[in-house]
């Protein structure tokens, strides 16, 4: 067996990969949120029992959403190559990974958001409806604001799922922690790199989760049981 990678090298690998992961996941989360939340809102508005029920639109939106959600990452990547090239001017590297990551995450966020919005208390929605508020205002001031803690938690779930997905960034040369674990650790049978990357991933994820939990709680004005 080959001698183990020296620790300083491991650290520098980790630092670089962490940067790539944060970049890919960060940007794709922002994009997924920017598109996924409106998608979820739209899904919920057009759903049965929504504010603007419209079975036809709902079914089409739902089909596209579910299509995106079940697509294997590689299929997305292939299907999106030309889109990616158009948007980021190339089809390889971390930046190019963002496109399929975001596209995969948008429907995921959309469905989570819809599920959350559908739980907003009907009496509260009705109270807003009776003020003559426009649908847009009800969406913003009621549906989204009332479920903000849950939405923040859902974005947290998405970020962490994206960290997992970004491990496949290596398919188009994107790098990042997951790819480091796979390429340097798994494929090269380098246990030191594999397990230190995994351990660091766990720490990083826990920190991210903590941040989201805190943010969700900070945004919540409700009383929670103290018994």
């Amino acid at each position, binding site marked *: 067996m080959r001698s183990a990678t020296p620790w300083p090298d491991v650290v520098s690998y980790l630092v670089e990969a962490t940067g790539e992961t944060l970049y890919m996941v960060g940007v794709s989360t922002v994009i997924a949120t920017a598109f996924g939340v409106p998608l979820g809102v739209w899904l919920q508005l057009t759903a049965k029992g929504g504010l603007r029920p419209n079975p036809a639109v709902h079914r089409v939106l739902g089909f596209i959403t579910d299509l995106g959600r079940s697509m294997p990452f*590689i299929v997305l990547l292939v299907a999106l190559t030309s889109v990616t090239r158009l948007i980021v001017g190339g089809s390889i590297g971390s930046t190019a990974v963002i496109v399929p990551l975001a596209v995969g995450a948008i429907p995921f966020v959309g469905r989570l958001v819809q599920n959350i919005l559908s739980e907003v208390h009907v009496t509260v929605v009705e109270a807003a409806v009776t003020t003559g508020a426009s649908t847009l205002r009800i969406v913003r001031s009621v549906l989204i604001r009332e479920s903000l803690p849950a939405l923040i938690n859902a974005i947290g779930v998405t970020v962490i799922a994206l960290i997992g997905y970004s491990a496949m960034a290596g398919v188009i040369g994107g790098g990042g922690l997951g790819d480091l674990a796979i390429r340097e650790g798994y494929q090269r049978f380098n246990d030191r790199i594999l397990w230190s990357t995994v351990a660091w991933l766990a720490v990083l994820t826990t920190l991210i989760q903590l941040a989201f939990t805190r943010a969700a709680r900070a945004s919540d004005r409700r009383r929670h049981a103290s018994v």
Partner: protein
Amino acid sequence: SSGGSASDTLKVGVSPVPHAQILKYVADNLAAQKGLKIEVVEFTDYVQPNTALVDGSLDANYFQTVPYLQTFTKESGAKVDWVAPVHVEPLGLYSKKVKKLDELPQNAKVALANDATNETRGLKLLEANGLIKLKAVDAPTVRDVAENPKNLQFVPLEAAQLPRSLEDTDASVINGNYAIDAGLKPATDSLALEKAEGNPNANGLVTRTELKNDKRIRDLAELLGSQQVKDYIKQTYNGSVIPV
């Protein structure tokens, strides 16, 4: 972006093992002699390096064999060309259950890599050792087995997974680099080994047709075929990777 202009850094797509290591050796130690700047882009996939080459995201790649390149050009009609071979990773058949080829039992489970290139090579290795006969097609897969007297059960797995699953099969066809990394010795542990000489499955440098005569590509090909690289490969891989 069509990477034509000569002052540009040469972007080369590679597979992680051993291609990336070999190319990094060249980039770090030899490229300066020729005034070359090389950017190594690693892919864990076998399609994207070609796709990226075609769309201009890469200037060259180094991960594939001639038969694989032929399949790709035939399917896609893309204008990419073989430049020069660099190394061979001889496949070997390994087992934890039997010591000799003919001890392989009836209905034995045999694992193969599940990517197109290595699957075909693996099947050809089995054919060369008289275990099966293949139909006369271009790139035979497990579905193209014509004769299978031992009724071998083929299990396609990801290449890097093969040594890890050796316990669960009767035998597995494993790439040299993965075998060595997993602690196997190709020379002594294998039941059967691909020949290095005249092996059509050499991995080599590929570029777009338009760049075939670009000086940078020529220089890179020359460096990859240099004695220093050959020595590096021999020292680093102990025979699981063989310079051509």
